[in-house]
């Protein structure tokens, strides 16, 4: 007998955790002398009440879908990929190389090429930690953290020494050619009469992200590979018994994870900045952890959580714009979400389990 009904596990617990995180966030806002209700209203107005707000919310959400899926695919194999950040950085490099050095006739081909570039570079960056974990038992959490730093150093080197156009000041690549410009929501949905999503960076990559959700869902629950990934994640000894190679699954799961993380850069680098800049990832790799935790590692949950975090991000930017609350408030909220949904999960779960068991005893 399960300790708890399934709906409680996948809906009730995240909701309670989220509520706790929101409650503590409100306390924090109060503590710095601001009004949480007013802050929330400002965030909602700025992020959800205008089409451009949605354009930003969904832009950020696109990033978080990719990194959230990346974390969750790895997590199905019980691999904790903290390296999304580094994988996304190098994914950006893949996008830049694809966009700068190949003559694309049309954006639709370019986005495919850039996706492949991003996925390959991201996957490559996940491959080494995966291999070391599988073959040499090096703890993947530590190696992926290290690889984040190493990726930052590489990107730094490449941008400063190799890709920066002569005479330019920022460590950034040249602007991508016009042909690889991705249609933004503004391009797609504005009509003659009304301009929608004006200036917002959301672009077709959002649909690519939705597609990724679907593909990951099919992969994890409908295919042999997904079956093997989940089986390996639940029990390594059982996987070995079944002839599922731990090395192979570790490597494949991390390759997929790294590829997904890398593909985030299609959105930021190709869809938004249209050149490779330093720190275009802006911590999205880490937010993927919170998104995956909240979404219970299910693509649909990841989608919802990503939109929630997109809202927080855009709302936070609005706060910084119109009040004196720094954008770091969002970092705090993010921390609280990770803390309550991830680390303090049992604090919510245990009393609930007791409650359900007691209820069942009484009914029996």
């Amino acid at each position, binding site marked *: *007998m*399960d*300790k708890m009904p399934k709906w409680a596990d996948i809906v009730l617990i995240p909701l309670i955790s989220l509520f706790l995180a929101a409650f503590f966030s409100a306390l924090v806002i109060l503590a710095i002398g601001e009004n949480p209700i007013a802050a929330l209203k400002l965030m909602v107005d700025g992020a959800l009440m205008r089409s451009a707000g949605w354009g930003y919310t969904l832009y950020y959400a696109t990033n978080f879908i990719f990194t959230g899926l990346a974390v969750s695919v790895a997590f199905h194999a019980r691999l904790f990929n903290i390296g999304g950040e580094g994988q996304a950085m190098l994914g950006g490099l893949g996008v830049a190389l694809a966009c700068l050095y190949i003559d694309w006739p049309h954006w639709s081909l370019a986005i495919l090429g850039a996706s492949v570039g991003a996925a390959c570079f991201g996957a490559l960056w996940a491959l080494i930690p995966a291999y070391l974990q599988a073959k040499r038992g090096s703890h993947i959490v530590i190696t992926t953290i290290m690889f984040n730093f190493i990726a930052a150093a590489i990107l730094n080197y490449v941008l400063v020494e190799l890709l920066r156009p002569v005479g330019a000041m920022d460590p950034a690549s040249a602007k991508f050619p016009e042909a690889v410009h991705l249609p933004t929501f503004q391009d797609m949905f504005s009509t003659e009469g009304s301009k929608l999503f004006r200036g917002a960076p959301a672009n077709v990559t959002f649909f690519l992200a939705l597609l990724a959700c679907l593909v990951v869902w*099919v992969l994890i629950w*409908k*295919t*042999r590979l997904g*079956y*093997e990934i*989940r*089986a390996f994640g*639940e*029990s390594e*000894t*059982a996987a*070995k*018994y*079944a*002839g*599922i*190679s731990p090395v192979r699954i570790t490597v494949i799961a991390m390759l997929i994870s790294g590829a997904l993380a890398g593909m985030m850069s299609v959105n930021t680098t190709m869809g938004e900045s249209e050149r490779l800049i330093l720190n275009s990832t802006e911590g999205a790799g880490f937010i993927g952890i919170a998104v995956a935790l909240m979404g219970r590692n299910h693509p649909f949950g990841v989608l919802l959580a990503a939109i929630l975090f997109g809202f927080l991000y855009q709302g936070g930017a609005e706060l910084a714009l119109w009040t004196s609350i720094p954008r770091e408030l969002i970092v705090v909220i993010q921390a609280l979400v990770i803390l309550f949904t991830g680390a303090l999960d049992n604090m919510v779960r245990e009393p609930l*389990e007791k409650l359900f*068991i007691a209820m*069942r005893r009484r009914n029996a």
Partner: protein
Amino acid sequence: MTAPAIELKGISKAFGPVQANKDISISVQPGTIHGIIGENGAGKSTLMSILYGFYKADAGEIFIKGQKTLIPDSQAAIRAGIGMVFQHFKLVENFTVLENIILGAEHGAMLNSSLSNARKELKHLAEEYGLNVDPDEVIENLSVGHQQRVEILKALYRKAEILILDEPTGVLTPAEADQLFRILDRLREEGKTIILITHKLREIMEFTDTVSVMRRGEMTATVKTSETSPEHLAELMVGRKVLLRVDKKPAEPSETVLDIKGLRVVDEAGVERVKGIDLTVRAGEIVGIAGVAGNGQSELLEVLGGFADGTGEITMNGTALPLTGHGADGQARRAAGISHVPEDRQREGLIMEFAAWENTVFGYHHSPEIQNGILMDNNGIYTEAEAKMQRFDVRPPDPKLAAKNFSGGNQQKIVLAREIERNPDLLLIGQPTRGVDIGAIEFIHQQVVNLRDQGKAILLVSVELEEILSLADRVVVMFDGHITGERVASQTNEKELGLLMAGITDTSAVANGNGGNENSTQEVHADG
């Protein structure tokens, strides 16, 4: 009558939805050895752990020497004079013996004085009880038997008057076990009280004064050992009359299916576990491998099943099987016609979090008949799982239920349904009835025999001699990675196999006897 050394009243304990102990009361007289028996999962360890303060009871009281005593933690238990040797030792593997002994019982805040004190005391205890261990040796370098001594020394060092031993002989050779019981006798003579948990009725009958039987979390009876019999105890354990022998025709073995030559296996720690064995299994016979746990049987199964590497030669139906690399994994073995019921169904045979239907294709998930293009044919698998569960009488027959939610016996039936229905040429089957109740045991044994009668080869590994003797046609005994003997099942007995299991190949003294339940007087010193 003096006050009992221990008296438990109305102890209850639930782990989540599992009621491990239900309103248990028991009392043990000082200076006696009290046995506790029961099937796996009956709640024996839980009860003792409560007495030792490891778990907290939900309800109930504990009296020590007539005094009501609160035991919220192990510190309190130690203060009350209780010592416990757990089923799974609680030692710090990379500490020395001495450090393990003083841990938690140091004199003062500095280590030096504690260590020298303990060294003296240890010497004294070693002389008194013959419990010799090198105090400066690191635990991981000690044999299991010596590790157990350290556990006993830990308890004695803390001046335990009451000693609890949880399945102490499961990991010992018969010789080591004999030595253990001599020590226990000494302690009893000194007036110490001993509680002994064991699965072996022989040990209960031989060494205990009184015995309690547990079943499904409840204490079903407490009796004087002298006033009971093994048959009676078995009945108390499972709740009904027990059939001990399996109904089967004599074997009709034909051609060789599996042929092993010079097989060696080195485990991950670099220890050689199988040291060159030769073995054949023919179609239509059941070969049983007997041995104390840890003598290489598991590794043998692992190599055959494809999840450990080995060296040597193995042929299956005349073709050589690779022993390393991709061609030697579980998938390749299944393709070669080998099915495998693993020793540990929960850690190996099943994914506990997966639903039963998903588990019915575990290991066979690449089979073409369950694919639907690039996807898995989940609907087909589900329908087939439902039918399988009917045929194997899995209860409840609900394919959606997660494997962890079935009882041990039913989990085993799911594994068997999956492996037997593949109709393999060779079935590897490890500890098939561990923790399974007698009704299910009968069913499982019957399935295995049926498969044999269809002309399939079966290799059975079990630590239960009774099971080997009743199920196998031919018995091979393993000790320390070697085969120490081979007997025809109907022409040997537990005594003889016991000697082989201790590495003694000269069994003339006990050979050809039948039964083998009479008390042995023979001293065996296999280990120094």
